[in-house]
C-alpha cells in the first residue's frame, strides 16, 4: 500500500466519522466542532489531489467565515430553547432516511459501475459519449495520486455518474 493511499484513507475515515458526528451529536456546539474537522479533512484531500486553491478557499470561506457565523448565532441562542434534535418529527425522519438511502444507493452504483483508470478500467458497462469521461481522463492525467485513490475519490464524490444521470434527465448539473 503506497503511503499516500494510507494517508488518504486516514483523512477519509476521519472526515466520514466527523460527518456522522455532526448529525449524531446532541449539542449543536459539538456539531459545529465536528463540521470544522470535516472541512479540514476535505481540504486536506483537496491538497492531496493538487487543488491547493480549492483547499485554501474551503478553509477561508467555510471554516473561517460560515462556521464562525454559525457559532455566533449558537452563542446568542439559549440551548434550552432549541427543539429536541433526535426525538419526534417521524415524517421528517422517514423522509431523511429515505433520501439518505437513495443517495447511498446512487454513490454505491457510481462506485460499482464507474469506469476508473486503473484496475477497474475493464469494467465498463455503459459507454456514454458525455464529457464526463474526458473530464475524468484529464483529471486523472494531472493528479499525483495512484489510480485507486483517484477512483475512490471520484466515487466518494459521486459526481461523474450523477452528472451523467442529471444530464440525461435534462436537469442542470
Amino acid at each position: 500500500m503506497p503511503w499516500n493511499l494510507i494517508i488518504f484513507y486516514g483523512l477519509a475515515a476521519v472526515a466520514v466519522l466527523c460527518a456522522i458526528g455532526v448529525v449524531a451529536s446532541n449539542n449543536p456546539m459539538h456539531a459545529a466542532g465536528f463540521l470544522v474537522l470535516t472541512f479540514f479533512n476535505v481540504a486536506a484531500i483537496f491538497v492531496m489531489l493538487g487543488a491547493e486553491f480549492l483547499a485554501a478557499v474551503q478553509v477561508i470561506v467555510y471554516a473561517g467565515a460560515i462556521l464562525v457565523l454559525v457559532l455566533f448565532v449558537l452563542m446568542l441562542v439559549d440551548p434550552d430553547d432549541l427543539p429536541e434534535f433526535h426525538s419526534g418529527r417521524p415524517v421528517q425522519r422517514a423522509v431523511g432516511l429515505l433520501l439518505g438511502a437513495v443517495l447511498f444507493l446512487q454513490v454505491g452504483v457510481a462506485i460499482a459501475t464507474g469506469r476508473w483508470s486503473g484496475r477497474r478500467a475493464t469494467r465498463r458497462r455503459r459507454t456514454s459519449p458525455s464529457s464526463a469521461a474526458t473530464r475524468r481522463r484529464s483529471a486523472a492525467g494531472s493528479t499525483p495520486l495512484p489510480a485507486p485513490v483517484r477512483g475512490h475519490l471520484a466515487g466518494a464524490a459521486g459526481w461523474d455518474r450523477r452528472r451523467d444521470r442529471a444530464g440525461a434527465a435534462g436537469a442542470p448539473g
Partner: protein
Amino acid sequence: VIPIASDAQVSIFGFEVNSYVADLNVGALFLLAFGSLGVYGIILGAYASANRFSLLGGLRAAAQVVSYEIVLGLSLVGIFIYAQSLSVRDIMLEQTQILRIGPLELPNWFILSQPLAFVIFIIAAIAETNRAPFDLPEAESELVSGFHTEYSAFRFSFYFLGEYINMILVSLFAVTLFLGGPDGPGSDRFWGLGVIWLVVKILFFLFFYVWLRATLPRFRYDQLMGIAWKVLLPLVLLNIVITAFIRLVGNGQLL
C-alpha cells in the same frame, strides 16, 4: 511559505538550503486561511467558560474577526494584481526590483505603489489580532476581561502566547508583502543581512503595536463595525478598481 532571505538558495556551512519550506502557488491565500482560524480559540474558550462576560467577549470576537477578515483579504488584491501571482516568493522577488521616479531610485516595495492598501491592511491586521484599540473582546472596562475572564495561570499564558505569536506572524506577513521582506541595503550580496533586515522590520511592527496600544483609546462597538463596513470596505474596493485601472492603462489594453 514565507522566504526569510532574498535569494532562493542560501548556503549554510557549504550546504545549499532553500530559504523557504514550501513555495505554494497560493501561499498568500494559505496564510489568510490559517490566520482566519485563530478566532476559534477565542469563541470556544469564551463559550466553554459559561460566563456572561466571556460569552459577550466571544460574540464580539466572532463579529469583529469576520468583518475585518474581508477587509484584510481584499486589501491584498491590489498586490496580487501588481505581482500577478499569489505565491509569497514571487511577490517578494517582485519587490527587489528598482522603481525609478525621475532621478529617484527606490526599491519597488508595495508600500510605495499601494499606500492605501498598506494602511488598511495594518488597521485590519490589528483588529484581526484583537489588539488595542480593537481589543473589544477583552475590554477590561466593560467585560471584566472578556473571553479570558475564567482563565488563569497556564491557560491564560497560552492565550497570550497565541496572541503574541499571532502578532509576530501578522507583522511578518505585512513586512513580506508591503516592505520587501528581507530586501534592504546589502541583502543581495549576503543573505544573512537580509535576515537581519527582516527581523528589524518585524521588530518595528511589534513596536508599532505597543505604541498604538498606549496611544489610542478603545473603540465603541458600533464605531468598530461602522469603520469596517462603511469606511474600510468601500476604500479597499476603490483601491482594487484604481489598481486594476492603472494596470490596464500600463499594459496598453485600455485607452
